[in-house]
């Protein structure tokens, strides 16, 4: 079965650079969630989109922005990167009306800021 795809899987950037993370949800899933998981930490909800509109916002820094496109894929744009942004970034997808337990997670993008 198709799963959530994230790219790139690994990314190394320097401080103050920008990064773009991509997420391709499971086919026919129209809701996308972004999470940040620091080393040894629990995943923290950043932002979510439903039908290309932002549906909820969590602890996402102002330096980050995200959007969902017409094909339902989503991109997380991160600017002025800081060392503390080094983390695993997960995307999860869900179908309309699906409950939270029906979120399927991608493999994550590991971002390292040096």
């Amino acid at each position: 079965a198709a799963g959530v795809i994230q790219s790139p899987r690994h990314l190394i950037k320097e401080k103050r650079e920008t990064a773009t993370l991509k997420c391709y949800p499971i086919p026919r899933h129209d809701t996308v969630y972004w999470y940040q998981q620091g080393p040894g930490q629990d995943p923290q909800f950043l932002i979510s989109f439903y039908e290309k509109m932002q549906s909820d916002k969590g602890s996402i820094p102002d330096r980050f922005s995200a959007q969902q496109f017409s094909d339902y894929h989503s991109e997380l744009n991160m600017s002025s990167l800081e060392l503390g942004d080094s983390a695993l970034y997960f995307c999860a997808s869900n179908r309309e009306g699906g409950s939270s337990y029906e979120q399927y997670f991608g493999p994550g993008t590991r971002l390292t800021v040096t």
Partner: protein
Amino acid sequence: QKEVEQDPGPLSVPEGAIVSLNCTYSNSAFQYFMWYRQYSRKGPELLMYTYSSGNKEDGRFTAQVDKSSKYISLFIRDSQPSDSATYLCAMSRLTQGGSEKLVFGKGTKLTVNP
């Protein structure tokens, strides 16, 4: 105080042991209670979810919820080396915007030794 508390371990057991993983929570608004398994460098994978107090069994796994004590557990019977992973509890509640938000515990790292 964090909404969800989980002992990060690590927990090391011999093969065949019964494993007990636990989380406590403080927000009585949580509706769904989930357990995720996360292998190293992979995304969280849903193991089980429950909605009400009581037990739910699936093979070697049993999820238990006690809403009166705000306490959830995951039991693994006849543990196998392949069960070695980090186990995250997660709970969902509605946000002000009406969407469901997942709140995770820190995860417990489990090692099952052959």
